[in-house]
């Protein structure tokens, strides 16, 4: 019996030892005085070739200082980074795609770039901050501290095929009424007006946010971002919801609410639908399915009649965000590498190599990008900046449990715009009252700086 107990104890011993092992920190080997900056990036549709090229160039430039960049990419980079963040041994520079970044900021796990942004940008005497398009640094900014640097720009636009437009004699709408008329003419030509990624109702969120700005100006966006009581039930927001619902019910392609993003985008590039609302990644995402003679171009959300917003602004944000964790082994060198990565020197090459638009002002000579992205530059030309609504990344439960089902119900016509806005308002009020949710202070957009009436 004693032997049996011994065996049992031996079998159970690791059970009690292993759970304690997560306290043991892993320390990678260092080679002499060389500083190895580990950079982890999300390896998605853009690949990591360009990042590797920049990393190699930076390592060569700093070889005398003993600094070397060790860059790796993975489609599941976040899953690999997560346990390392927990045990305090993260890469020096990382991508947190899909991660609850506000939770990390609240837990003090990320470094601020604010100091570096005040220093001159690589190769210029201008402070790094001044190079960024207004609004691109706001995605994860709290209390004056900038926790994320965008290496690309994301903007929300309506896409179309100029070839199809020429054939039918259609033109780009300047107002929402013209947009409505255009959709009617498209339908009359036997084509579905608007394709929609209905399996992800959140694809309508940016269109809604843009409509809120067109109706109520940046003041309305500020109220949403600040989670002010009554922000969602104001007349401008209700009007935006009504316009969105009308577009969905009148102009969405049949069966759109059951289509994935790829299905609906395929409908668009195959000419089954004439328009689609999407981010700047559309061209890259559909490059293998787009016919060679397809002339993909975009236009900004049209002005709403009687609206208070500047119609030249566009809904967007900094994308391909990079972070430096507070537990990074070499935070200063890591931030310096970020400065080099997002610099005027490298932006044109980035655009040419992976087809993205830089968040830096004047960094994009049209020749550096495809004709599709040139239409984006054209759209951006008159806009003094971009705006976004921070709530989906800030209130993840609200996003999953309220926003997505409420948007789906609005788009299907199962709820009125008033009820939709009330639902959103109640959800935000519940989040505001929840002491467990950390709500960082909000720095409002200055309407005057964005060409709007204060």
């Amino acid at each position: 019996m004693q032997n049996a107990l011994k065996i049992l104890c031996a079998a159970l011993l690791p059970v009690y030892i292993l759970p304690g092992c997560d306290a043991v920190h892993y320390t990678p080997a260092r080679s002499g005085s060389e500083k190895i900056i580990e950079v982890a990036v999300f390896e998605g549709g853009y690949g990591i070739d360009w990042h590797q090229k920049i990393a190699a160039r930076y390592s060569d430039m700093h070889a005398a200082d003993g600094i070397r960049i060790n860059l790796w990419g993975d489609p599941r980079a976040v899953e690999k980074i997560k346990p390392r963040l927990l045990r305090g041994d993260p890469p020096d520079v990382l991508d947190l795609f899909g991660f609850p970044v506000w939770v990390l900021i609240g837990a003090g796990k990320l470094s601020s770039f604010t100091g570096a942004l005040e220093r001159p940008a690589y190769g210029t005497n201008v402070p790094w901050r001044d190079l960024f398009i207004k609004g691109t640094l706001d995605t994860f900014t709290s209390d004056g501290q900038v926790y994320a640097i965008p290496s690309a720009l994301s903007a929300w636009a309506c896409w179309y095929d100029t070839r199809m437009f020429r054939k039918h004699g259609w033109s780009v709408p300047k107002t929402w009424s013209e947009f409505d008329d255009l959709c009617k003419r498209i339908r009359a030509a036997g084509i579905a007006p608007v394709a929609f990624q209905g399996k992800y109702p959140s694809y309508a969120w940016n269109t809604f946010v843009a409509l809120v700005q067109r109706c109520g100006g940046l003041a309305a966006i500020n109220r949403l971002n600040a989670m002010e009581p009554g922000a969602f039930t104001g007349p401008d927001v209700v009007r935006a919801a009504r316009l969105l619902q009308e577009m969905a019910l009148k102009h969405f392609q049949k069966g759109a609410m059951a289509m994935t993003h790829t299905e609906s985008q395929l409908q668009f590039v195959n000419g089954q639908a004439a328009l689609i609302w999407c981010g700047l990644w559309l061209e890259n995402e559909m490059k293998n399915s787009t016919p060679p003679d397809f002339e993909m171009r975009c236009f900004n959300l049209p002005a709403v009649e009687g609206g208070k917003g500047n119609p030249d602004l566009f809904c967007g944000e900094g994308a391909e965000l990079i972070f430096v964790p507070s537990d990074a082994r070499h935070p200063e060198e890591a931030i310096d590498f970020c400065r080099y990565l997002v610099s005027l020197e490298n932006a044109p090459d980035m655009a040419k190599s992976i087809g993205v638009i830089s968040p830096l002002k004047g960094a994009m000579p049209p020749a550096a990008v495809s004709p599709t992205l040139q239409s984006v530059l054209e759209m951006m030309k008159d806009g003094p900046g971009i705006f976004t609504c921070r709530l989906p990344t800030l209130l993840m439960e609200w996003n999953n449990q309220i926003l997505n089902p409420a948007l789906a119900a609005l788009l299907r016509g199962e709820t009125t715009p008033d009820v939709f806005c009330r639902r959103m308002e109640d959800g935000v009020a519940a989040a505001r009252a929840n002491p467990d949710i950390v709500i960082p202070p909000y720095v409002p957009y200055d309407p005057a700086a964005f060409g709007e009436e204060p």
Partner: protein
Amino acid sequence: MKTRGEQRVFIFTFLAPALFLFTIFVAVPSVRALGYSLRQWDGLSTPKWVGLKNFITLFKDSDLFLVAFQHNLFLMFVGGLLTLALSLFFAAILHRRVRGASLFRVAFFFPNVISSVAIALLWVLLYSTTSFGVINSLLLHAQQILAQMGVTWPRIDLPFPFVDSKYVIYSIIPMMVWTATGFYMVLFLAAMENIPETFYEAAKLDGASEFAQFRHITFPLIREVFTVGVVFLVIGSLKFFDAIWVMENQQPTSDSHVLATVLYQKVFTEYNVGYGSAVAVLLFILVFFATLVTLRLSRKEALEY
């Protein structure tokens, strides 16, 4: 002749590896999940003890848990009953030695060798509202043929969005039945093939119909296996996850959530580990009691032959 002590050592030696793995991968995580359910934790900061708050929130702050549980019950009763009825029906037919029985057996069992994710993707394509969607295409053709015949019923706006969040929970039933029927059919058929043929010969001499033979001979003699099948279905329906997750593109809403998707979303996308663990604990309790009740209700003295 081994002593009693030596026998125990022998038994424990063989049990130890399984016990070790079970403890590491099942027992310890389960106990830790119970601990997490009593804490508030985002997976990053220090967990904070909150007692039963997560469980209270489950029922008080939103109806998500109850809605998800209703969806599980819907899958259990509708999907489960259809699966059992069809698998019993097919097993009984194949048991009566129809022509090509072995081919049918393989065909019905085939979905079980495909991964559940692949099956869900296959049905997403079948249900698609684009030109790939076989089901919508068939419905469209049927509607056109009926219209040519002057029949305008049923008035369905096609293509029908089967995988829209609102309808996913219903659209999953045919997929669930198609996938599971083969497995239960093989289970029941194996039990039926152990029944001595003489019982049926005697029944035939007494003039019993095929249905009477099934009711009075076949079903009572496979009842124990049938109970096992019911338990499998109850557990499977309560733990249902992958098809919803795939059909909803990892973003289920309250229209389509089941308990396991709520659990996953709370822990891995909202990083609310405490709340997700509370769902896991309740899911465990529900599976445990549902299995217990099923076994109790079907408890009857086993018939022997």
